[in-house]
């Protein structure tokens, strides 16, 4: 019965520092590129603020490509400890070996280290972030007995979504005041249409309808929705539409269901969809 499963040729990516050689698509909304470059040149760490799916991660990939630096991305979660970032001893057949964590690796490689959703990480991670993020630019590696001085090429970047209205997910002042903060908002309508069309290969009319839909959902922020539809969701819907899924189905699955579980809210979003298409 069971057919042979041939291994798929998955592309192996280096788990740590990734060198980006093709230009990731990114449309600047304002002066963020110049700001980032200036911060990089001045060896200042960068904090990217903005709602989910507005292009923070894409921006950092684009900048890594532009500055020709490897990129180390760490998706923070609530079990992420300082040791996970710095490194730890592992044991091989008859010795213990120190293995660098992603942050230490990035410092050594002079890479851009991007801590995605940093508020999710445990509080003790600030111990290693703080000395790296001020003018000392050092990474203390207590267990290894080493103090790593960051080269000028190294840059620490973090992302943070101020939209979470939870007191527990707030960035401490002592942390946030070390960073140059770049605020990301959703792009304006014309730009967002262009982004959707470019990313998904869909028609301009579809992209424009999707943007109108997004604006309607963003109008509901605080009136039943925690967050409006992000550019990322629009791209998802556009990709489904480009593959021949009817717009109403695509938007229901990619946008409405992604935004809410409330039946009446789903109905309202579906009504938006049937109005704009």
């Amino acid at each position: 019965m069971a057919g042979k499963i041939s291994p798929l040729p998955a592309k192996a990516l280096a788990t740590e520092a990734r060198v980006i050689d093709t230009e990731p698509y990114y449309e600047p909304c304002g002066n963020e590129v110049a700001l980032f470059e200036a911060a990089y040149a001045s060896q200042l760490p960068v904090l990217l603020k903005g709602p989910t799916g507005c292009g923070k991660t894409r921006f950092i990939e684009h900048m890594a490509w532009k500055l020709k630096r490897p990129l180390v991305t760490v998706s923070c979660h609530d079990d992420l400890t300082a040791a996970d970032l710095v490194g730890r001893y592992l044991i091989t057949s008859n010795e213990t070996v120190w293995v660098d964590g992603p942050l230490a690796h990035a410092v050594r490689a002079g890479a851009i280290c991007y801590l995605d959703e940093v508020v999710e990480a445990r509080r003790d991670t600030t111990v290693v972030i703080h000395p790296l993020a001020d003018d000392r630019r050092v990474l203390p590696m207590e267990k290894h007995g080493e103090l790593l001085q960051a080269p000028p090429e190294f840059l620490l970047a973090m992302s943070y979504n101020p939209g979470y209205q939870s007191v527990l997910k707030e960035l401490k002042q002592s942390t946030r005041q070390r960073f140059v903060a770049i605020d990301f908002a959703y792009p304006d309508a014309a730009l967002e249409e262009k982004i959707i069309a470019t990313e998904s290969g869909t028609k301009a009319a579809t992209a424009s309808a999707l943007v109108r839909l997004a604006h309607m959902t963003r109008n509901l922020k605080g009136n039943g929705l925690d967050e409006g539809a992000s550019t990322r969701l629009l791209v998802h819907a556009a990709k489904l539409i480009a593959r021949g899924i009817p717009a109403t189905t695509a938007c229901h699955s990619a946008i409405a269901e992604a935004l809410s579980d409330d039946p009446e809210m789903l109905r309202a979003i579906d009504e938006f969809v049937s109005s704009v298409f």
Partner: protein
Amino acid sequence: MAEARLTEAELRDRLDYLLSPVLSARRTAAPLAQLLAPLTREQQHFVLHWIEVINRSNYEMGYQFAAAAPAALVRLDAAAIETWIIEAMDTYDREGLHRGSEVFRQIGTWTAVAAGAETATFDEYAHVLELFVCGLAGRPLNLDTAAEPWTDTETLYLPPRIATLPTKAGNFSIYKILATLLWAQGRFGTFHADLKSACAGFADPARAAALLSHLESVRLEARIGRALPGIARDLVRLRGGEIDARCAALTAADATVGDSITLLHRLYDVLDAPRYAWTTKLRPTAQKMRDARIKREQGELARALAELAQENDPGTAPGAATLERFQIDAASAAADGSIDFELQFDGAPLAPPDHVRQLIDSVLQDLGDIPDDYLQAAGSAAYDAGAQVNTEEDESADAWHSLQHEAGAHFYNEWDHKRRHYRKNWCVLREIDVKPASSDFVADTLNKYRSQIVQLRRSFELLRGEDKMLKRQAAGDDIDFDALVSAYTELKSGHELPDRLFTRRHKNERDLAVLFMVDMSGSTKGWINDAERESLVMLCEALEVLGDRYAIYGFSGLTRKRCEIYRIKRFDEPYDDAVRQRIAGITPQDYTRMGVAIRHLTRLLNEIEARTKLLITLSDGKPDDYSDNYRGEYGIEDTRQALIEAHRAGVKPFCITIDSEARDYLPHLYGPVNWTLVDDVKRLPLKVADIYRRLTA
């Protein structure tokens, strides 16, 4: 056993008696009696009974009902007739005799119901439509019902029921079209012109108004169609043809209300306004509302910008002229009516906070631009804004006066869902200690549930997370040398190297604070109260094992001026005899005004530092209060709003209820999963601790 039906003469006597205030020499009871005579005895009684009921409100309504009832009885069943009567009376209450009696006279729409059309009612779609127009408008608009759809630009009035099309979906689409059209009237400048004087010059102003309404509808449909092609498609399908060629000029992208008025002059004699299911009425009230709003918002904007200036430049002296330092550049309107703008302060772009953005957006929607004098310190506007604030605070003035001297009173806002904003400082709340009762209640309870408590403690012990070092882990922060040594010997003796060689610190992550909010309303009297108290004893026993921080408060109240929170156990209090005696002393009080209690307890919870904060309500029914309309929708919506606020503050609300009708309203309040129903009150004491365990495991 059927009694004989009443004769015409008997009926005439009865009707003469019932309707005498509205009968005269020219209008006698005879024709009514003639109509009622052929009905069955039951039907006659039904009609007479309802005439009596309706007469309590208005005799003329009673007469109109009597006149329409025989025809209705032929077409409708009893249930449908009752809905019909109730709707007529609702309309009468809201809009007066003329509209109310119209409902009785227009039985035609009701026969559509009887013929099997699937009616769409306002009530079932109100929330969806509310969300829909909020998405369109970018600001919440109120929805309400009226016989004829119209808007004053702040509230959209929709028919209570639509049964024009055979299917429900079709009738809903008419609701959607109506809501969109009414929104568009405000959005695309229908009220920029003085509509009343535009129609006044015609021989028949009412006819002119109807035609103007139609022309505006044509203009707005074209506008809507460009941004919302889906709605345009529905309109074409419903209209069943193209629009009249003579109106074509109005479909141009830049057509204004002025063009509609020009065309009105040209077409007044030659065109009758067609009557569609989505025909709306234009009322001059809209202009008054719009003017009032524009004035109010100018003041509010001035005030908000002054605050913004203070925030951005703390050196600004309070009251200094700051408006001139702002600049607002509005781009031309996009197809969907949204207008982009940029706010500048001292020449630098500034991201406006949400409320400022909404205000500017609202002004732009009304005026299309920010007039120059908005950013000049004219003074008068700002003072108007001050006056506005004062009137809002006046609402609470009487509450202030009566309690001004009482220490420890807290003031809370309350959500008015009809007005869609908060009543400021509406509720007065005080914290009171429960009077301790020196009974054996706690000891008795412990005795009664002795064996269950042992079990309970055991199951809670399992939950207890401790800060400890986990050994022999596959991954961890440090090396486990004991494991390494033994592994090394195994390796030397030819075995494989085990991989569990690390230690990992497992932190106690039960960083949890929970507040129990206990219903102490009068309805809990008796065994419910006993069950509540027993539940609390069991809970305390279990929570002491677990080490979670917890507090218990009761709530009750009588009107908004006497909301009370009863302290049973504070967070910083140990579970001691005093607490036990207070649990024993819980006695039913008055009513359940839940919103204010949730707001107060959320505030208490927020003073506690914990990773997870839970607010668990033990309740026996809907929010309710004596007088001031808290019962029903108002109370539910206020409670819902309070829960949304709690959620935003990082508090997770949960509700344990014994109300078997909870399914009807709790999902609306707490969401589909954050509540549970214990249908057997006797099992409550055992259940509550168990629910808590599952909730926090």
